[in-house]
Each structure stands twice: as C-alpha cells, then as structure tokens.
C-alpha cells in the first residue's frame, strides 16, 4: 500500500491527472480551468502538462460546454466538465436532462455518453447567492444519469477515475467545503467500487446516513453522542444514483434506528428517497421512524445565516435523541 496524505482538492487533481495519463481520449472542459487551474485549482497545471487541446478554457456558456461535450463524446472523446459552482449548472440543465441523460437510450445502446460533469456543491464557504447550493436531487431524479459524491480525499482520487472510466454520464458532486480537508490516499488500490455505500464508523444504537460534506458532520455528531452514551454507526452513501442499499439496510437491521442528514433542502430530496426505501425494506427492524435532518425548504440564505440554515452536529444530535426516545 502506498499512502500519501493529501488535501481533497489535491487528491482530485491527482486523480484527474492519472485519468488523463491513462487514456488519451480524456479531455477537460470548463471555465477558467486552464491557466488558472479552476477557481478551486482542481485542474491546476493540467493544461500546462497536457496542452490546450486536452484542457479547454471554454467560452462562458454552460449549455454550450455540455452540448459540445456531447458532440465530442460522439466523436470518441471522454470529456470531463467542470461547472464552476453548483448554482451555475442550470443553464446546462436542458442539455444534461433532455440530451445527455437520454442519448444512450435514444440510440438503443449504439452510442454511449462517457461524460463526467464535476460540480463543486454545498455551503459553508461564506459565498454569495448561487455559490453554495446542493442540486443533487435534480440529477438523481433523472433516468440515464449516475450521480456520486466523494467525502474523503481517498474517495476523491479513486471515484473521479472510476467516473471517467464509466461509459455512462456521471454527475460528480464535489463537497467544496471539504476541498481543504486532508486525508490518506492509497495510490495503488481503490477501496470499494464507484457505486457502493460504505460504513465509515461502526456503532450499535443508531445508524447515521449521509453524503458529501455531511459525512464529516455525521462523524462529529457520532463522536459527541458516544460521550453521551449513544453508539452511532455512520454510513457514507457515496453513490446517490444508483444507491447501494446493502450496507445501509444491514446497519439499520442491526441498530433499528436511522437518521439521514444532508445539506440539501429536505422536500423531494435524496435523503427522502433513501428514508422511504429503508422504511419499505427494513420496516420490521425499525424501532423508530427514519428521521431526516435537512436544510430548510427555503432558498439558500445570505451566507451570514448559513450556519443556521445547514444542519450541524447539534441538529443531527437532536434527531438522534428523538429517535432514541421511541
């Protein structure tokens, strides 16, 4: 095992670099991703090392980026797109949902769409409107797309490579508040396949489930709960579409309780779908209803209020208490 400690952003960069080295058909497209290396420097030095034809600073037009990536995929390329911020993916929403997601189906399999759309998402960076949102449910709801979200540097390194190797379109949700979080990266072997969920902390009393940046918050809550005598198991969903229910159901059958936490608003969210499925499939194992802790169903507020809007460890613990009280 070759371990290296890297920040999430550097691990992503290393994963992108590896994918470009491994396959000359991989190319990067996005705004300011060339000389600047992206506003979060995720593509730093890639244009310098792979040239302007493989790392494209595109015109400032998201629909244009996704639409031309579709044409490039038809011509045999494997485009990897960077959307600069979550709230700016919507100009491309039409191309993603009416074209990209459906083209393999429309071609009855004769054409595949190996395109990755990287979207830095979520709050806790104190930014202005449209820069802190969690739009993953729109994509998870769309047949034909795969949606994943790494929560650790190791997952960032491996999942980006696995997403690029997929012949289906993958929406790659990057929890941007974790870009600077450091962790051990195994440069030799991926821990689990792309579309797997994973237990990241074992416990016996209750199962805490979440994705992206919220996994770190769940672990914080679990540590506090332990001090208060409640043993929490934590599951990182990792893949939002498809969802790997095995580890989640196994855990819930063991603990009998579950809380889902997410930065997205709760109504019609990924957490809602997972909660409903767990109730369908593990009903007799449950000691309490599955609870959800989400952002409020209001627009993302001005950043000074984001700490109130987004679930934190305290709000998760409040749900843990409610669940344990049944």
């Amino acid at each position: 095992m070759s371990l290296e400690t890297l920040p999430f952003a550097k691990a992503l960069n290393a994963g992108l670099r590896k994918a470009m080295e491994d396959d000359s058909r991989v190319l990067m497209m996005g705004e300011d991703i060339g000389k600047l290396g992206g506003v979060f420097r995720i593509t730093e030095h890639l244009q310098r090392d792979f040239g302007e034809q493989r790392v494209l600073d595109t015109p400032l037009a998201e629909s244009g980026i996704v639409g031309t990536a579709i044409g490039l995929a038809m011509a045999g390329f494997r485009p990897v797109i960077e959307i600069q911020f979550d709230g700016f993916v919507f100009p491309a929403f039409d191309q993603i949902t009416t074209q990209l997601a459906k083209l393999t189906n429309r071609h009855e399999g004769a054409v595949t769409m190996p395109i990755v759309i990287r979207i830095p998402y979520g709050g806790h960076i104190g930014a202005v409107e449209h820069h802190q949102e969690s739009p993953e449910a729109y994509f998870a709801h769309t047949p034909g797309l795969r949606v994943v979200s790494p929560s650790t540097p190791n997952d960032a390194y491996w999942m980006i490579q696995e997403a690029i190797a997929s012949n289906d379109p993958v929406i790659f949700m990057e929890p941007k508040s974790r870009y600077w979080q450091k962790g051990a990266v195994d440069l030799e072997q991926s821990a689990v396949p792309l579309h797997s969920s994973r237990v990241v902390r074992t416990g016996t009393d209750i199962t805490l489930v979440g994705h992206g940046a919220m996994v770190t918050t769940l672990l914080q809550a679990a540590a506090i709960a332990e001090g208060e005598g409640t043993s929490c198991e934590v599951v990182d969903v990792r893949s939002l579409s498809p969802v790997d229910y095995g580890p989640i159901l196994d855990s819930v059958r063991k603990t009998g309780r579950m809380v889902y936490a997410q930065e997205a608003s709760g109504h019609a969210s990924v957490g809602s779908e997972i909660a409903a499925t767990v109730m369908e499939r593990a009903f007799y194992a449950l000691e309490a209803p599955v609870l959800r802790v989400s952002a409020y169903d209001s627009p993302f507020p001005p950043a000074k209020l984001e700490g109130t809007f987004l679930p934190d460890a305290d709000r998760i613990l409040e749900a843990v208490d409610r669940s344990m009280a049944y």
Partner: protein
Amino acid sequence: MTSSETQFVRVLEADGRYAPNAAAEQYLPLIEAISDTELEQFYRDMVVIRAIDNQATNLQRQGQLALWPPSRGQEAAQVGSARAARAQDTLFPSYREHAVTRIRGVDTLGIIKLMRGVSHGGWDPTDPVNGNTRLYTLVLGSQTLHATGYAMGLAFDGRSGTGDPERDEAVMVYYGDGASSQGDVHEAMVFAASYQAPTVFFLQNNQWAISVPVSTQTRVPFAQRSSGYGIPSVRVDGNDVLASYAVSRIALDEARAGNGPRAIEAETYRLGAHTTSDDPTKYRTSDEEQSWQQRDPIARMRAFLEGKGAAGSFFDEVDAEGAAAADDLRTRTLELGPPPASKIFDHVYSEPHPLMDEQRAWREQYEASFEGGQA
C-alpha cells in the same frame, strides 16, 4: 451593410429559367459542372421525398402515426445541401429533414418509428448504411451544439483541415428560423467560431415557427446574425435546388479545409402545416400560401429540366418511383407492431444498473402473476 445582407444567391427563377443573379456568379463554375444525371437525381430526390412525405401525412390523418412534420416545400434546400455533402461528412438533422436523411441512406421507416411511438431513435448513426446521419433532435437547437462539439473533435483528431478533400471531414447541422432564437444556437456559433470548428450551420428559414412569423424571431437576415459571430454567411434561395447545392458545396469545402465554420440561410417556405396537429388557416393567409406555391421548388426544377429537353417519360418514371416508394412505406408502416415492454428497461444505461434490473424483474413477476401469465 455587411456583404451577407446583400448576398442572396439564386440561379433558377421561379419559372425555372436559368438566370443567375449577381451573387450567384462565383458559384457558376460549380453549377455548370453539374452533370445531367446529377440534375435529374436532384429532381428525383425532391419528387420521391414529397410522395413519401404526403404518404406519411396521410398515415397520420388515418391514425397510424402520432404526429408528422411535413417537409413539403422545403425539398430544394434539403436536397441541394445533402447532395453537396461528401460521404465522409456528418449531418445533424433537426426533425423535418426527411429528404436529407433519405439521401444519406436512412430508411424513412426509421422516422416513421419515431412518429408512430415505437422508438425514440429510429436508426443507428454508427451503421455505415446511414451515411453519418445523426438522429433527429426534438428539443430545438440542441443539435447545433452536438454538431459543433463533433466538429471540434474532428479538428482535434486531424480528421479535418489537412488539405486532402477526399479525406477531410466536415459537419452540417440543420435548424430552423424558430430554433434560431434558442440560446443553444448562439452558443454553438460562439464555440464554432472560437475553435474554428468545421461546422456548417444550415438554417431553413421556412417563415413560420408553428404560428409565429419569422419577424418575431429576427429583424435582420439570419445570415447577418451568424456573420456577427465571425462566421462567413450567405443567403440562398432555398427553393432553388441548384443554388442550395452550390452554396452548400462551397461552405462544406471551406469548413473541411480547416477555414472554420460557415453559415447558410436558405429562404424557403413550409407549404404544409407545422405538424399534423397544426392548423395554418388560423395564422396565415391563403394569398401568402399561394404566392409561395408559385415558387414551388419541384415545379421550378421540372421547368428547368424541360427547358433542357428532358423527356416526358423521365418525369412519368420519377412520379411512378415516388408512388411506389410511398406505397412501400405505407405497407411497412402498417406492419410495425408495438415494441416489447422489456424495451422500457433496455439501454437506459450502457452498464448494469440495479434499479433497471430490479424493475425489469418486478414487472416480469407482476405480469406472470395474472392468470395465464403474460410476462
């Protein structure tokens, strides 16, 4: 005024007289090199597709198709441009390019499948028999970006612009006056110009976007807009198959040679309804329709060929071919049954997906649970 404002290329007058206007002068060597056989082929293409198109319209009226977007009136723009493309070129149609697709080798039954509700595709663009013709796209303008991306890929791969016209490839994308207002068309032009992609934007201005006149989409000629993006652009009489052919040949040659994108605005008219769900009497006058009927592309070409001495038997033979093709299409349409229900789950993803597997299995079990199980 830019040159695109003044250029309007016409070779054949509405009555079929060969009378090239000043803008057509540079195209004359090309036009005069067209063989009699090719001229007859252009005519044949137009007549046969009109017969097929009329048949499909009838099939819809008789309840055999959910919808049909008639191409009647737009045959010259389509035949001229499609015949101008080389075998190695790739064409991205919108959804009314019945002549274009047929010329490239696509069986019109594929379009029927789309309109009958048995497929969302209809043919395999990667199968060489289909002449590099991509699928129809129903979301207006989306395909202009796909075409531009594809053309960027050709340039990146050195499949274009090497100076060898036998091998260099270009891309032609079709869209209409309504689609021209979509942001995707504008973004496609920005990308094509920025990357000097070998894309030819072929706009059929058929004057009406369902019920909305072209004056609502633009107050300047479309060719002026595309030239504003730095794309050399030309307007052509889209009911003149010779002019449509010539401007398309030159535009494709330029794109293929690596000189960047080109744009063509073909002025034509949708003689029929937008689709069979539409009622043009609500928004346009019969005077207007009559005036365009006088400029019918097929009658024009026929008069030209007659002037050149084509035999009456030739026209009879072409009419018979059209009638036979239409009959054949009817027969094969009526034979098209519904797709198997399992198709719902096929090719949603190219790699295994648990939801598809679970739902396919559930449905089979559900069907089998009825008496005499029908899974």
